Structure formats: structure tokens, C-alpha cells
């Protein structure tokens, strides 16, 4: 049900308020914890220590940062467009916040079980670009404008493959209800049946989250934070909060749709806490994957992102849908889903590999002083 229209007024307000509170607590605590985690993960990948100062292992570092940010002066450039500038962080924040409503955490825990949950999340999170554009335009800063426009260009590129990959999944399950999708995966999670769709989803989610290979709108080394460049203090921290909330939302979505949510592999009879643990574990896995990718990849260029999304991901997503259609229409057994989808993934990887490696580079090595004696010891000393 979308809205319980038959409730009494007192009840529904209270209900909404409780749901709201739950989301706010989950979001803020989650974002604070994730910022700390990301800093620690990045530190370990880069062989640093990361935050160590506040609390044991720097656990309270983000709390301290949050206090600092709240206490900071809320600055606005004189030439900025006042209302658009000040509203932009909230326009980015609200979609991330609202998307949380539709996510079930276990069989019984959700703010609202929606029949169209999957579609709802995709539709609502797509709105956050408006905030980026507003921030970019209103800041009256060319970097910000560039970043905002890049965000918009990126949105139209990745939104379509993401929706298509999710459609491929819903074709098999036959429902857009997230609970139904999870329950369907009781036997085998969908990433086994649909590796190609899973891959497309991960890539598109990275683009949506503006994380490393696709952090083009906020590119630190080009547009220096993009739309956020003029923001400071609490408005900046709202952007930050929204980005980490989105990370949670998309990881949860991936965990529910592709990794079997709370159901697989323990089955429907597992206790509530085990279900919570399973959802949490799978979400954490995806979050860590996103973080890992972030620190291992350089950034694509905006035109490359667009051509990758339009020329590679969208045809692949259509291929996945077509293959699923074949299997469903002719009623072939389930394993053919895996076969076709896996073959599609391998094919895609092969084609990408071929195109990138079409031109292998080797340097010409010109020996200098070939007459000079190179002692034999030199070789053994190095290795």
C-alpha cells in the first residue's frame, strides 16, 4: 500500500513521525559510521593509519567533525542566488531521505512496504540531480556550474542502464515489490542468475553515488568539488550526509535485489536478528566494495562515461532483457539464465578488453654505452 488512507488522523501522524525518527537516526548514525569507515579503509589501502586522535581508533572523529561543521559560519557568496543556493542541499538530501522509506530491512521491518518499492527508489533518487544543478548554478562559480552540468549529463547516462538492469530482474521475479524480490531469492540469490545485470547495477550505482571511476561532477583535481565548492559548514555537511545516505540506500538495494537480502541462505525461518545480521552483512559487503573500488580507480572523462553508458551498458542491459525474455517465453530451465547472462558478461568483458588493448604500447629501448661492462653482480643484487 502506498498510503494507508483508512487510518485515523492521530494514528497516521504518529506512525509517520516514528518512521521519520527511525530513518533520521539510521541515516545520521550510518553516515557518521561510514565516514569513519571510509577514512579507515582508505587509510589502510594507502598504508596510513587514518584518524587516530579522537576516541579509540579515531571512532569519534566524525562526531568531532560534525560538531565543528555545525559550529562553522554558514557562508554564502555575495553574488550567489540566495534562495536557490540555500535550498540546494535540501533538494539533494530529501530524495536520499525519502528513498529510505521504501526499503525493507527484514521481513517485518520497514517504514512502508510498497508494491512499487524498487521503482519508487529509482525514481526518487534520480531527483537529487536537481539539487546539484541548483547548487552549481546558484553558486555563481564556474567550477560549480561545470560540476552541476556534469552531474546532469551523468544522470541521463547512468539512470537508463540502472533502470534496465533492475527491469531484467523484475522480469524474472514478476514483481516490483522488494519483499517479493527477496522472497523469490530464497533458493539462489539473483546475482547468480543475473551476473550481467548485477554488473550493470554495480557500475550504474557507482555513477549514481559519484564515487571514484565516476566522480566526475565533484572531480577534485578538475572542478575542485564541483557544485559543493562554495558551500561550508552545515550546508556542506548536508551534501555529505546525503552522499553517504545514498551509499547506504544503494548498497541496501543491491543487497536486497541481487544478494538475497535477509532470506538467503538461512531461509525464511531464521530469527529476526539473524535476518538483520544477514541484511547488514550483505550491505556492508557492497559498501566495502564501493569503497575499495573508489580507492583503486582513477576517474573517467565525462564523454567517456557517457559513451560507456550509452554504447556499452545500455546495449548490454537490453541484451540481458532480451535473453531473459527468451528464457521466460520459451520456459527454459533456470540455469539457462545463468548461462546466457554469464556468457553475456564474459562477452562484454572480452569486447571491452579488446577495444582498450587494441593498441598495445611498447617503448623502443635504445641501449646506451653498450661497450661499458655491466658486471654480472648487478643483476643478482637487485632481484
Amino acid at each position: 500500500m502506498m498510503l494507508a488512507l483508512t487510518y485515523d488522523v492521530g494514528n497516521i501522524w504518529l506512525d509517520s513521525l516514528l518512521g521519520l525518527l527511525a530513518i533520521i537516526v539510521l541515516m545520521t548514525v550510518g553516515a557518521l559510521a561510514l565516514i569513519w569507515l571510509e577514512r579507515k579503509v582508505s587509510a589502510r589501502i594507502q598504508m596510513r593509519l587514518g584518524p587516530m586522535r579522537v576516541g579509540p581508533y579515531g571512532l569519534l572523529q566524525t562526531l568531532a567533525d560534525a560538531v565543528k561543521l555545525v559550529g562553522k559560519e554558514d557562508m554564502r557568496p555575495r553574488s550567489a542566488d540566495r534562495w536557490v543556493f540555500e535550498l540546494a542541499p535540501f533538494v539533494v538530501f530529501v530524495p536520499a531521505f525519502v528513498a529510505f522509506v521504501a526499503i525493507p530491512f527484514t521481513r517485518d521491518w520497514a517504514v512502508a512496504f510498497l508494491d512499487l518499492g524498487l521503482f519508487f527508489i529509482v525514481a526518487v533518487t534520480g531527483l537529487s540531480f536537481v539539487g546539484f544543478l541548483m547548487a552549481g548554478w546558484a553558486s555563481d562559480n564556474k567550477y560549480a556550474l561545470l560540476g552541476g552540468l556534469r552531474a546532469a549529463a551523468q544522470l541521463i547516462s547512468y539512470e537508463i542502464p540502472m533502470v534496465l538492469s533492475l527491469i531484467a530482474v523484475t522480469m524474472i521475479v514478476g514483481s516490483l515489490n522488494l519483499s517479493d524480490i527477496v522472497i523469490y531469492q530464497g533458493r539462489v540469490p539473483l546475482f547468480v542468475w543475473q551476473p550481467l545485470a548485477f554488473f550493470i547495477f554495480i557500475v550504474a550505482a557507482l555513477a549514481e553515488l559519484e564515487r571514484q571511476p565516476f566522480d566526475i561532477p565533484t572531480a577534485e583535481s578538475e572542478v575542485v568539488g564541483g557544485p559543493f565548492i562554495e558551500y561550508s559548514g552545515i550546508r556542506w555537511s548536508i551534501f555529505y550526509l546525503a552522499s553517504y545516505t545514498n551509499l547506504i540506500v544503494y548498497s541496501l538495494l543491491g543487497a536486497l535485489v541481487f544478494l538475497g537480502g535477509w532470506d538467503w541462505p538461512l531461509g525464511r525461518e531464521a530469527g529476526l536478528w539473524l535476518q538483520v545480521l544477514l541484511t547488514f552483512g550483505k550491505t556492508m559487503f557492497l559498501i566495502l566494495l564501493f569503497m575499495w573500488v573508489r580507492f583503486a580507480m582513477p576517474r573517467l572523462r565525462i564523454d567517456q562515461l557517457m559513451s560507456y553508458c550509452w554504447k556499452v551498458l545500455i546495449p548490454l542491459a537490453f541484451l540481458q532483457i532480451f535473453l531473459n525474455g527468451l528464457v521466460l517465453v520459451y520456459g527454459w530451465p533456470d540455469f539457462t539464465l545463468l548461462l546466457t547472462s554469464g556468457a553475456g558478461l564474459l562477452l562484454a568483458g572480452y569486447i571491452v578488453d579488446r577495444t582498450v588493448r587494441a593498441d598495445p604500447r611498447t617503448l623502443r629501448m635504445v641501449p646506451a654505452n653498450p661497450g661499458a661492462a655491466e658486471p654480472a653482480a648487478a643483476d643478482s643484487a637487485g632481484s
Partner: protein
Amino acid sequence: MTVAQVIFYVVAALAVAGGLGVVLAKHAVYAALFLIVALIAVAGVYILLASEFLALVQILIYAGAVTVLLLFALMLTRTSDLPEAMTGAQWPVAGLVAALLGGAIIATVTTSDWPGDEDGMITRVPFDDLGSALFQQWAVPFEIASLVLFVALVGAIVLAREDEPEEEGE
């Protein structure tokens, strides 16, 4: 007043405010942003009519995708290129047309016999039916409509690129 009514009035007020904003805003970017407000508010009305699917499509396509292009184009132009107030010699004609259109809509709304108006129940359309209607019953008109849109898109690109012959492939 039931909850649904409260929500309806809030949403309707938002839609009207958004629509007025689109018309009255001095700056084209404001107008585009107000348009988003209006579109989302209309999505709210769809939800109240128990057509969640339509509401979400409204958000995804209109509020999400269409306004991207609008804002994209508007933000790249200099503000000085846009006239301060969108008035011209034709405003009495435009006003007349708007008044006539508004009158026609109001007349239609008040004189129509709305099904389900009496018992307050809303007939929900399962979107299986929606799908089969679109892709089986009306497949040919649907495809023709999308073809027309596609042609329009191509035409727009051709028109826009005409004066830049030196631009080679991306």
C-alpha cells in the same frame, strides 16, 4: 477532514503555487524550478488517486529527465540574454486564449459525471492491464507516437547543429 483530504489540499496548493511560479517567476531558471515543484505536486495527486505507477513515472520522466534538459539549456545561457519580464504586444490575445482554455476545463470538470465520485472509492488499475493495453492493444499507435518523438529529437539535433559545420564527431 480525512487525512487524504488534508494531503490533497496541501498537494493541490503546491501544484497551484508551482504553476503560478512558472508563470510569474522573473528568471527562467526559477520558472524551471517551479515547474519541478508543480510536477511533483501533480505526482502527489496521482498517489492520492491510487495510481502509484503513474506518479512514479511522472517523477522519473517529467520531474527527473525532462527538467534536466530544460535546466541544462537555461543554465548555460547568460541571464542578460533573457528578457526581464516575459511580456509582449500579444499579451491580450494570450490572456484571452488562457481564459477560454481555463473556462473550458472548469466547465468540463463541473459537468462531467465522475465514476466513483459518490462512494469515495477509487478503482485501481493493475499495471498488468496498463502494460497489455500499451504493448498489445495499442502497440501500433504507441510505436508511432514514439517514432514521432524520435523524429522530433533528430530534427532538433539537426536544427541545433546546422550552424556549426566545423564540429566533427565527438
